[in-house]
């Protein structure tokens, strides 16, 4: 069988903060329909890798390509292809839950935005909160809204940093089902997680990152 073209291709990724090398020589190919889970202890570099993958952080060396395009946070094609839920998601304080989803769906040119928004709103169980402003949402509801922003729009690669965070047991079960469905539809997924059940159900490949960051010896 011919090998599929990777949606995401990471080559020799290196990222350090000062003398502390967080990740070095990291390679990763993720094809369509594949879900890769990054696991490891706190500080192992999972979030740093994901931030580099979406372009929020710039790697010190190495290349990251999505669909053959070098990742840049400001590239509209990358923004179109990559849906991400990482720790820096912000919301407009004066737009309600449903208005956020509506804006994202329309901005991405979703043909029937009302239907898409209704569907995802029911799925993340935020119908009752649809008119609420983000500062009044609980942390779990904010997380659901963040996930909804990734699912309401077209995407080829889904990047999630601990998506199970603050979700209740039912929420984690729903998320696992949803991610499996996304994967089966041909979406590429890279996620960092501490939830073994989620990893077990969703991931087709698990990468355990190093336990400790290496400290580069100063000459």
């Amino acid at each position: 069988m011919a090998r599929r073209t990777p949606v995401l291709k990471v080559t020799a990724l290196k990222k350090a903060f000062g003398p502390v090398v967080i990740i070095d020589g990291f390679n990763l190919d993720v094809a369509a329909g594949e879900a890769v889970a990054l696991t490891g202890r706190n500080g192992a570099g999972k979030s740093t890798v994901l931030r580099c993958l979406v372009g929020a952080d710039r790697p010190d060396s190495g290349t990251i390509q999505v669909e053959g395009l070098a990742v840049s946070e400001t590239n509209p094609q990358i923004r179109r292809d990559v849906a991400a839920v990482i720790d820096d998601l912000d919301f407009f304080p004066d737009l309600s839950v449903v208005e956020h989803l509506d804006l994202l769906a329309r901005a991405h040119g979703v043909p029937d935005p009302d239907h898409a928004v209704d569907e995802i709103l029911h799925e993340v169980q935020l119908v009752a909160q649809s008119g609420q402003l983000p500062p009044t949402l609980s942390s779990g509801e904010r997380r659901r809204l963040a996930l909804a922003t990734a699912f309401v729009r077209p995407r080829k690669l889904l990047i999630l940093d601990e998506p199970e965070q603050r979700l209740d047991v039912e929420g984690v079960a729903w998320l696992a089902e949803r991610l499996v469905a996304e994967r089966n539809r041909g979406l590429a997924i890279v996620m960092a997680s501490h939830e073994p059940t989620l990893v077990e159900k969703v991931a087709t490949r698990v990468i355990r990152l190093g336990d400790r960051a290496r400290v580069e010896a100063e000459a």
Partner: protein
Amino acid sequence: MAKRTRKPGPGKPSVPVAAAVAAQIPVPEPVEREFFFLPDAEPEPVEAEDLHELMKLWRHGRATRSLGQAISDGYVTVFTILMLGAMITSAVLSAQHGMADCTTGTCASSRLLLPTAVLLGCYAITLGLARLFGPVLVSAAEGSWLLDAPVDRRRLLSGRLVVPLLSAFLLPGLVTGLVAGLTGMDWPAVGIWTLAAAAGSSALVALAAAQQSAERTWLTTLLQNLAGAAALAVIGLVVAVAADKVPSTALSGVDAARWVFLGVAVAALAAGSFWLVLAVRRLNQLRRARLASGGALVSGMQGAMFALDFGLIRDILVERRAAAIGHVRPTRGRGLGLAALIWRDVERLRRNPKMFIGLAVSLFVPYAVDALRLSQLNPLISGLALVAALVPFLGGLRVLSRTGGLARGLPFKTSALRTASMAVPAGVALLWALAAVPAFVGVAGSGADRSLSDALIAALITAAAGLLGGVRWVTAKKVDFGMPMVATQNGAVPPALIFNLLRGIDMVALICAPLILGWSAYLSAVVIVVAFVGLRGSFNAEDLRAEAAAAQRDLDSAKAERTKTKIPPPRR
């Protein structure tokens, strides 16, 4: 079940019964502890004074310097305060002498109106701040630890009322007294206006505290709006008198007005005493969440102030207001792509009509400046006023530029996103410019400052300066403390910290400079184009720095490679 703390008695070892029965299991030696919990015991009353004493003890234990040492270390500060105080007093005295000799109608009316406007402004600001922060508040730590204790909350919090009351008495009194002195009022009148401002402001704080306990805000909101509107009306009157639109003789009655303000001061003292008693009585009813939210706001704003991040301060206030509103009636979006983003900004105008009040006030500025015969400086002053008025209209742009998360989810170039976010505010600025054209013609002053076409150009340039100043203000990046710092007398400071003070102002000054200096308006147009290209994010300084760093890294690695492969010359 209530819990209590108590020291164990000497004959009461804290070994569980089950452990004693199970003889084969080694029982650990009882540890002498300071306290332990007895879940079924009745709670003992705790005195707030005891807790305060305990806190004082902890703080003393952590103090590294005595008060005398702190003062001697801060002698520069003390010396500066004394010097500045002496200079200000001397300036007030000389101004007072100079202005007291002025007996024209304009001087007399200003003597009455300016301190009155400041007094009313102090009332409005005091009420606004009191409502915003509490006025009674506690820090998060105190909210968690002290308010959980079974203490009399009224006794604990009554001290917390003193600081806002004293501040409201001293600061408005000082400011009003200073302005009254500078306008040349006689000393008894200065005293009356000062007392009216001080007593009135502290009475309003007491009212706000009483309302805080009752969780009502309508009265304080109403009074704040009335005082603010009255202050603006009086300022308008000052301008009208200066422009000879109102006969100054009609407003020169300081003697009559002093009795009115003396009455205000006496009434404020009486009402303030009543509201204070009411507020203290109701302190027990104050919820912890209400108290701690004020403390959280103070600490958040303190943090932002240390970085001079005024944008963050505004973000905190906007988030707080959104949390207070909580729920809105959702509206359906329109259009696809960037049109959807622009439509949301249009919806914002409908949702937040209060923004137009600030815009209306800013529109008053060019007419006031013209009336005061300062038409040459009109673009600069009006442009700065417009920056402040347009910042709320740029809320969408602020959110899209403060963190990358939301912008990353929208499939557009950064420049396209920013341009779309500027579209509605630009429309608002254009309307402002058209409405301000008569002021630039000189209709409020001499009436012959500029031709209609020149006035239109000046108004448009001013509006563009206000818009781009606002954009620069809202797109400010956080101060990067990792960057090389500048040495100052107060220690190392990141350069961005200094520039944060000038953000927006610099843009207005740069764009309006050709107009003020009488140069061609085309120069302003060129500056506007350059500034627009820069502010819409067509080039990103961070990207350029990163590219330079990457190029340097490549160069270094190539050099290292060359060194490795270099063949040493043969030794002879």
